[in-house]
């Protein structure tokens, strides 16, 4: 009898093969029939109709793209690696800016009931705004599409980190704070040696949610600002009617999102403690 993991892996492979097979069969290939009459040719009968490509085409495309991911043939033809790198650069810079603001501010809110009550109404109004709704305002004020995209990432990833940091800090057990007090630790040392490690799992949860949202939002943001990035790539291939590339890039977005999430899950495990 195989172990649970092995059986699960086997089942995954079977499901993948069945799904791809069903897809391959359901997409009927257009076979060229007998020679067309001149009239038929003039009427465009022989032209292939646009259709969802079969998985075999997508796999071939993926092989082509991934064997040369960093080519650059001008603004409309860059390798998938370059596009993903642009998107990651925007996501990570927006996310880093958000973390730099949200974590210290979250500490303040978590430690001070006054700050919490004073800032809570603003947070509750700003938080549910779709990050893309900020785009026109950002474009007008910042006057730079690149920076606007980063701003959109910033604004969407700031909230989960802010709220989770505040929640984590406010929830630190008073016993541990008392330990810091009886050891005459100053505010900064208490924050760094007691509150930060105590709240770290909750803060990391917020960061993990934020990076997930940021990766969702970057695709839409790049469709709007254009130029570079995986979102732009998807839209550009749609305009080229290259559905094979669209499907391939969808899969790449999923893979990169999974890698980002795995990184933060690993960090989260590293700071989690058992009570």
């Amino acid at each position, binding site marked *: 009898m195989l172990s649970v993991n092995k059986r699960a892996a086997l089942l995954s492979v079977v499901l993948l093969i069945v799904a791809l097979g069903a897809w391959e069969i359901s997409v009927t290939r257009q076979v060229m029939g007998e020679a067309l009459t001149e009239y038929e040719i003039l009427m465009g009968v022989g032209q292939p109709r646009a259709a969802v490509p079969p998985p075999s085409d997508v796999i071939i495309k993926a092989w082509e793209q991934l064997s040369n991911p960093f080519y650059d043939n001008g603004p409309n033809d860059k390798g998938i690696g370059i596009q993903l790198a642009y998107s990651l650069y925007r996501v990570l810079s927006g996310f880093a800016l958000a973390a730099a603001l949200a974590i210290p501010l979250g500490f303040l809110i978590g430690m001070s009931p006054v700050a919490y009550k004073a800032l809570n109404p603003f947070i509750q109004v700003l938080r549910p705004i779709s990050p893309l709704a900020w785009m026109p305002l950002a474009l007008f004020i910042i006057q730079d599409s690149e920076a606007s995209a980063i701003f959109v990432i910033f604004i969407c990833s700031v909230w989960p980190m802010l709220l989770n940091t505040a929640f984590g800090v406010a929830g630190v057990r008073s*016993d*541990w704070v*008392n*330990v810091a*007090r*009886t*050891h*005459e*630790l100053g505010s900064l040392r208490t924050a760094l*040696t*007691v509150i930060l*490690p*105590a709240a*770290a799992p909750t803060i990391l949860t917020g960061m993990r949610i934020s990076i997930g949202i940021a990766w969702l939002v970057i695709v839409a943001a790049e469709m709007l600002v254009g130029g570079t990035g995986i979102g732009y790539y998807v839209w550009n291939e749609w305009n080229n009617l290259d559905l094979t590339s669209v499907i391939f890039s969808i899969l790449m977005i999923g893979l990169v999102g999974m890698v980002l999430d795995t990184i933060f899950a690993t960090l989260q495990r590293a*700071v989690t*403690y*058992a*009570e």
Partner: protein
Amino acid sequence: MSKPFLSVERLSQTFPDGAGGMLTVFENASFGIEKGEFVCILGHSGCGKSTIMNVLAGLAEPSAGVVKMDGVAVSGPSLDRGVVFQNYSLLPWLSALKNVTFGIKARYRSWSREKVVEHATQYLAMVGLEGDVIHRKPSQLSGGMRQRVSIARAFANQPKLLLLDEPFGALDALTRGTIQEELLKIWSQTEQTVFMITHDIDEAILLADRILLMTNGPFARIAESVEITIPRPRRRTEIVEHPNYYAIRNHLVQFLGKRSKELAGRASGGESQSPEPVRIDLTAPNDDPEPAPQKPILHAVNG
């Protein structure tokens, strides 16, 4: 009369009772502790033992009154007053050793890393924790081991006064017995002044030089200060055979069972309330069959 090392003078604590009035937990409580003395405080739940402890630790402000240590009024928490909490209060993300070095680093900031680790290891060994165990996280330790770490952390800091808040309350009876002896051992090696809250009469007799008895609240007061006239070193198995053991024990049981209720609920009327010294010694030359209060060796303080 010279002032003792720690003197608590006319301490009062009132809280809002939630119905618009004020609830007086205790008022004008006064007592003293000598240097190197081990004092236990016994009383029913809710009589304000923990409140006194929090005031001594500096974690709570009294409504009135002062606590003086070495003649200086104390306010706020300090490294001079170490605390062992009932729920251990170890930092769960640090190993046992790191929990102890955490305290030492705060106390002796100029010490080198090696010296801090060596000092911590020494104190952990004093409570019987040696080898790989000290690198485990608290979650991987049993309740008894966690409390040992907590005790080692407090003793390693060599505070002037050590406060123990029901340190063995959450432990099973067998583990409790072992750690009580560990505590006696480490205490006799360090000559630390200790103030300890407990619910357990036998534990108090085993450990203490003197037991403060507290009446029920509200208006609780520390009614008596009972000297434990059993010579040290004490062992759990041996003290029960000492002639004074059951006399003292009966006195404590009578107090907690009956008199703590009878004496409860009286306002002090502005008087400072000091515990009445009680000395029970059947081995004394006069051999008084009735345990009678005598002049104590250790004086309570009148504020």
